[in-house]
C-alpha cells in the first residue's frame, strides 16, 4: 500500500465535524436567520455560552464587559459573527495536538490557524475586499490536513530531509512528491466530507497554489497571503521553517503593499493575545 492509499483511509476516517457546528453552519449562508434559532442551539451548552459571552465582552469585539446574556451578545455582534465564533470554539479543540512530523508543539497549529484567520480578516478590511467573515473561517480551517499527514511526514523524515538538502523547493511540493498529496488537498477533502461551502473548501485546497483555483480568487488570495504572513512571523513554522513560496500574482491581485503587511502584523498580535486567552 502506498502512502497515498493509507492517507486516503485516514481522511475518510477523520472525525465528523462537531455536530453543533454542523447545525450552525447550515445557517451561515442564510442572511435572514432568526437569532432565536441560534440562541436555542447554543444555550444548552453552558461552556460554549460562557465563551461566547467572554468573546462578546472582549476588547477585540469592541466590548466593555457589559454583555450579560446570549441574546445581548447576538444583538451586539450579529448572528453571522456569533456563528463564526461558535464554529471557532467548537473546531479549536481539534487543532491542539502535538504534531512531531511537522515539528509543531501542542496548540501551535491552533495559534497558526487563528493568526491566519485574524490576519486575513484584517487584510480584507484594509484592502476593502469583501468576505471579511469568510476568510476568518477559512483561515481557521485551512491547515486541517496537517493533522492527517503528520504521522506520514514523521515516517518519511529521511526523504523530506533529503529533499530539503537537495535544494530549492517548497514544503508543499515535497509533500506531493513523497506522500502523493499535499496537506492543503488533504484538508480540503476533510472539509468536503464535512459538507462545508465551496468557498471554504477552495480556500483550504488552494491556499498554497492560488493560481490553480478557478473560483473564489479573492478569498484564496487573502488566505494565502495571511498564511504567508503568519509563517513569516514565525507563528507555526515548525521544523522546516519558512520554506514556503508567496505567489506574486496574489500580491498583485489584491494590491498588497509592505505597509499593509506590517500594519496587519501589528494589529494581529494584540487580537491574537486576546483570543489565545479565550481558546485556552
Amino acid at each position, binding site marked *: 500500500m502506498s502512502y497515498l492509499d493509507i492517507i486516503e483511509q485516514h481522511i475518510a476516517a477523520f472525525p465528523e465535524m462537531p455536530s453543533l457546528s454542523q447545525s450552525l453552519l447550515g445557517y451561515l449562508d442564510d442572511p435572514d436567520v432568526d437569532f432565536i434559532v441560534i440562541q436555542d442551539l447554543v444555550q444548552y451548552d453552558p461552556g460554549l455560552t460562557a465563551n461566547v459571552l467572554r468573546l462578546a465582552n472582549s476588547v477585540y469585539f469592541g466590548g466593555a464587559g457589559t454583555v450579560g446574556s446570549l441574546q445581548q451578545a447576538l444583538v451586539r455582534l450579529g448572528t453571522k459573527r456569533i456563528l463564526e465564533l461558535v464554529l471557532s470554539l467548537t473546531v479549536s479543540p481539534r487543532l491542539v495536538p502535538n504534531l512531531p512530523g511537522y*515539528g509543531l508543539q501542542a496548540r501551535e497549529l491552533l495559534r497558526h490557524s487563528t493568526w491566519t484567520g485574524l490576519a486575513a480578516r484584517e487584510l480584507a478590511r484594509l484592502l476593502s475586499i469583501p468576505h471579511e467573515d469568510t476568510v476568518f473561517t477559512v483561515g481557521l480551517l485551512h491547515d486541517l490536513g496537517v493533522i492527517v499527514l503528520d504521522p506520514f511526514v514523521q515516517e518519511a523524515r529521511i526523504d523530506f530531509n533529503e529533499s530539503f538538502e537537495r535544494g530549492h523547493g*517548497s514544503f508543499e511540493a515535497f509533500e506531493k512528491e513523497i506522500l502523493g498529496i499535499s496537506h492543503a488537498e488533504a484538508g480540503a477533502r476533510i472539509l468536503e466530507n464535512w459538507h462545508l461551502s465551496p468557498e471554504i473548501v477552495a480556500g483550504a485546497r488552494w491556499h498554497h497554489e492560488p493560481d490553480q483555483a478557478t473560483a473564489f480568487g479573492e478569498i484564496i488570495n487573502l488566505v494565502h497571503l495571511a498564511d*504567508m*504572513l503568519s*509563517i*513569516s*512571523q*514565525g*507563528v507555526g*513554522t*515548525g*521544523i*522546516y*521553517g*519558512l*520554506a*514556503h*513560496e*508567496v505567489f*506574486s500574482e496574489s*500580491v*498583485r491581485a489584491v494590491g*498588497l*503593499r*509592505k*505597509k499593509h*503587511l*506590517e*500594519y496587519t*502584523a*501589528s*494589529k494581529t*498580535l494584540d487580537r491574537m493575545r486576546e483570543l489565545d486567552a479565550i481558546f485556552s
Partner: protein
Amino acid sequence: MSLVVVDIADMRISDNPGDTLVTYSLGSCLGVSIYDPVIRVGGMIHCMLPLSKVDKEKSRLRPYMFVDTGMQEMLGQLYEAGMRKARAVVNVAGGSQVLDSQGVFKIGERNFTVLRKILWKNGLLMNVQEVGGNKSRTISLDIATGRFSIKSGGKLVHYELP
C-alpha cells in the same frame, strides 16, 4: 537556573546569574541580545517590524514591537544598568524570509537594515550575526557566562564570549 522567556514584541533585562533569557521561533523577526561581561548584565529583545511609523499608537503601547523604538529603549535601559558601550557584546539572529520574488514579504531584510543603522549610529559592532535564509530560530543568553546559543532545524550551536 530559571528561564526568562522574551515574548514576541517584548524585551527583558537581567543581572541575575541564575537567569537564561530565551526567545522562541524567530522568523522574519529579529532577536538581539546585548551583554556586558564585566557587570554581567544582559538584555534580549524580540522585534517584529522595522519602523514604528507603521502604527504610531502601537509604538507607544509596545515599543519593543519595532526595531527603531525597541532598540533605543533597550540600549537606554542597559546603559542605565551600568553597561559600557566598549564592553557590549551584541548578538543578532532571525530576519528570515518566505520565498517571495516581489519583495513585499522581505520584512526580515528590512528589520536587519534598520538594526544595522541603529547599531552603526550607536557605535556598536555585531559579534554573532546569524541572519536571513528561511530558517526559524530560537536564541538564548546565559547571564552568568554570556554564552549565546542558537537552535535551528534541530541543531543547537553555542557561542562563547569573544
